[in-house]
């Protein structure tokens, strides 16, 4: 046993330097994409012993399979939405975007609206809570700062060398939300820099290209006239190459969402393409959740719309998106009120989901070798696929009134015609997750782009079924390979539901996000106030990401 643990730690330690040295070469920091080598046999995962996940322990107990707990921080009891780990000049800093609420900050002695937590996780065994940047004051519904991105001033084209900048949403569903930039060069003493844009509603998950400074902010505004079903949000694109001086570029969304769309008379773009149509199966289309840009070289953006229903997945030409409204032929109000043609101009591919599934996350994994097609293929060339991991968010407690929400691997090699290859799912049993309390189902896919994990494994948060990891080296036959289910603790917010006429509350942790750092550690952030757990891979999961794995 000791030998196995030592071996795992040694392997992780050996992986870390290779990943760390290149940490800022990949999106969102740089524009390189990790090369993915084939480490599977020609038969792939087909016919292999799938080693079915062992059943979890009782609901009040922690459960782990091929994962080991390395550290923990309670995040002061604040419910977490998004974790982000940044290698900040050799220090590993964990930024946590928190959901709405308020709670005492022991560092200041003040009750603070939930905002952004900053934790030094350089020593994963002893995380140190450095600072909490409060969220908006006022009613609790206005609070929260769920989303966070960080760029180095040494990478941003016009940033101040040596500085670090934090981009965050300010507020979640209130009447006057914003996106802000903070100086986090000293993560223990952040300084406010600028409000990029305010007067927003429904801020959500943004993306910030550090090497160009282009930020794809997600938000809506009652005043901007855009149309969305469900969450009222679309893209607001800014140039933050100098983070202190934001420059507005344009708004963007799906066809059918633009302010001048005639929603009452619009027809489906698929069934009745015409000058007044809407993409997908919902009129107007649902709002975007969180884009991912693969940078200037790959020149692609991937956008999921719909969160947990009426989904659409869209692939865009990045350059056409950014420059579309500067064309001499662009309409006068292209930036704020684009025409249907101007929204279609950068669109390369689109796929509509059905009503019971939405686009919460869409994570591209480009250049994945297919194990069975590295030799003896029709043209004799090793075959690779571009993949998109798409996740639909479960939004109901106790599975009430909702179909199961899963994740899928889409083949986007032909961008104009994305097509599903396989499904990533977790069964309700063993674990009896629908009766456990809180939500059961998929939420989000890990977005960090680091070798050797990129293209080998994916992590998906599965709410009360924990942080789940799949081996996707054979993407037609993805294998569940690890999980971690946190036990509830004294900070876990109970979830209550009316079951068979009786109101019942359960203490159940809910994994909201899984994220990786450039050392190979995995962060499982809890939505119900139970803290953030730092994990490492062990056993078969660790073997899947070692360079010589077979």
């Amino acid at each position, binding site marked *: 046993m000791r030998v196995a643990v030592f071996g795992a730690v040694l392997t992780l330690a050996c992986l870390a330097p290779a990943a760390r040295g290149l940490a800022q070469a990949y999106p969102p920091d740089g524009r390189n994409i990790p090369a993915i080598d084939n480490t599977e046999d020609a038969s792939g995962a087909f016919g292999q012993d799938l080693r079915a996940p062992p059943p979890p322990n009782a609901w009040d107990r922690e459960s782990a399979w091929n994962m080991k707990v390395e550290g923990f921080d309670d995040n002061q009891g604040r419910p977490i939405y998004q974790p982000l780990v940044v290698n900040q000049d050799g220090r590993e800093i964990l930024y946590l975007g928190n959901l709405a609420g308020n709670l005492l900050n022991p560092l200041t002695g003040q009750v603070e609206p939930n905002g952004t937590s900053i934790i030094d996780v350089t020593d994963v065994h002893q995380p140190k809570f450095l600072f909490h940047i409060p969220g908006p004051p006022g009613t609790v519904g206005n609070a929260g700062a769920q989303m966070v991105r960080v760029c180095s001033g040494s990478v941003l084209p016009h940033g101040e060398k040596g500085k670090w900048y934090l981009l965050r949403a300010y507020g*979640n569903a209130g009447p006057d939300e914003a996106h802000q930039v903070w100086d986090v060069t000293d993560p223990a003493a952040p300084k406010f820099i600028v409000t990029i844009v305010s007067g927003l509603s429904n801020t959500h998950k943004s993306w910030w290209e550090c090497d160009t400074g282009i930020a794809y902010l997600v938000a809506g505004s009652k005043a901007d006239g855009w149309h969305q079903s469900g969450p009222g949000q679309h893209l607001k694109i800014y140039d933050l190459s100098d983070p202190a001086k934001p420059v507005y570029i344009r708004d963007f969304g799906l066809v059918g969402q633009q302010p001048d769309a005639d929603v009452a008379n619009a027809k489906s773009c698929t069934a009745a393409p015409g000058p007044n149509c809407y993409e997908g199966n919902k009129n107007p289309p649902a709002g975007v959740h969180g884009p991912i840009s693969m940078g200037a070289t790959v020149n692609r953006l991937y956008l999921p719309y719909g969160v947990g229903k009426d989904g659409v997945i869209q692939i865009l030409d990045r350059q056409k998106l950014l420059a579309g409204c500067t064309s001499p032929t662009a309409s006068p109000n292209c930036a704020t009120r684009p025409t249907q043609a101007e929204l279609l101009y950068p669109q390369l591919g689109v796929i509509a989901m059905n009503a019971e599934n939405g686009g919460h996350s869409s994570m591209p994994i480009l250049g994945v070798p297919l194990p069975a097609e590295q030799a003896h293929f029709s043209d004799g060339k090793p075959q690779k696929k571009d993949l998109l991991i798409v996740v639909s968010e479960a939004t109901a407690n106790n599975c009430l009134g909702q179909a199961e929400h899963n994740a899928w691997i889409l083949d986007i090699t032909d961008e104009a015609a994305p097509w599903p290859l396989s499904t990533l799912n977790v069964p309700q049993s063993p674990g009896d997750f629908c009766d456990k309390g809180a939500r059961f189902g998929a939420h989000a896919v890990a977005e960090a782009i680091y070798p050797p994990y990129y293209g080998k494994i994916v992590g998906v948060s599965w709410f009360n079924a924990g942080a789940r990891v799949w081996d996707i080296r054979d993407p037609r036959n993805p294998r569940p390979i690890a999980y971690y289910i946190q036990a509830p603790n004294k900070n876990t917010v109970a979830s209550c539901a009316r079951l068979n006429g009786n109101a*019942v*509350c359960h203490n159940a942790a809910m994994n909201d996000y899984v994220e990786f750092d450039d050392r190979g550690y995995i962060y499982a952030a809890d939505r119900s106030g139970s803290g953030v757990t730092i994990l490492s891979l062990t056993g078969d999961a660790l073997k899947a990401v070692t360079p010589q794995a077979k």
Partner: protein
Amino acid sequence: MRLKPLAVATFAALCSLAPIAAHAASPTPSPAGTLTQQQIGALGKIVPGQSSRADVTALLGEPWRVVQFNDCGEAMDGQDDETWEYRGADANGGFRLHVEFNEHGMVHLFAKIPDAAPGGAGTAAKVEPGGSHMGMSM
């Protein structure tokens, strides 16, 4: 020189009284949102559908934690209820008082939830009559 022992004795006596005086002037406060036994005994006064935020504050003081899960405005029915939590302890151990308010600021649901629930068993909650919420909180 002769006064020195007296001064020392007086100082010592004053010092011994200081904690009492300090306590009388400013009793050591409980951590915010921690219920006293008196407050725990009064929990029956919270009535779903009838008690307001002001009523709860008057009875229990400020909560230990407030949460609201209106994630991007897409919360399911009842999931965006503002929830107040208090900590407490009774003969059965530590617990959290969980109070959910509806959009009108009235108590919609409350429950006394043990910190340790063997096997993860659920806890019955009191809820306003006639509520239609399916998936309450989070």
